[in-house]
């Protein structure tokens, strides 16, 4: 595949341990689902890189095709797609998210 958007996504999720594709920015999320994932990551104290799909229509479409996932936000850890808002919230509630992050060597703040 030589699709430049796909190549860019692959590069970004390789270069950054935790990546969130979202609507808006962490400070000004433009969607409640994106805001919810930002909140979870903030509560865990995880540093993440975010990309605003609203400012980039090709990324907005490209990320959905990349992961075969129809919605945004999308969270990636160490290059792997973890899920959207429902999965992230569920994993946070059960403690799985914190565990998964620490297994992969990503720092979180104490509960």
């Amino acid at each position: 595949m030589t699709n430049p958007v796909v190549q860019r996504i692959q590069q970004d999720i390789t270069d950054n341990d935790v990546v969130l594709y979202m609507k808006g920015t962490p400070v000004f999320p433009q969607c409640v689902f994106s805001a919810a994932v930002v909140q979870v990551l903030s509560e865990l104290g995880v540093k993440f890189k975010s990309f605003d799909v609203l400012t980039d229509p090709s990324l907005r479409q490209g990320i959905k095709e990349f992961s075969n996932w129809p919605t945004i936000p999308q969270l990636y850890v160490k290059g792997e797609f973890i899920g959207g808002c429902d999965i992230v919230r569920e994993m946070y509630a059960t403690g799985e998210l914190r565990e998964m992050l620490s297994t992969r060597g990503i720092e979180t703040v104490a509960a």
Partner: protein
Amino acid sequence: MAMDAGEIERLIKQAIPDARVNIEDLRGDGDHYAATVISAAFIGKTRVQQHQMVYQALRGRMGDQLHALALQTAAPPG
């Protein structure tokens, strides 16, 4: 554009025949739903794969006609 809860259930069951589906219309606006789907087809699948199966069943409506579907999936308790 809104979508009827019965239609969501029908599409899911068409693709995943043994699914137990429970749908709640969160705001009564036909646009914000919460669905729980339980099926043996989910055994051994990751959450992402389980949700992808449900999205697949909805044939492109998710994120389009259907703005918000909070999804919870599980395999039946063994």
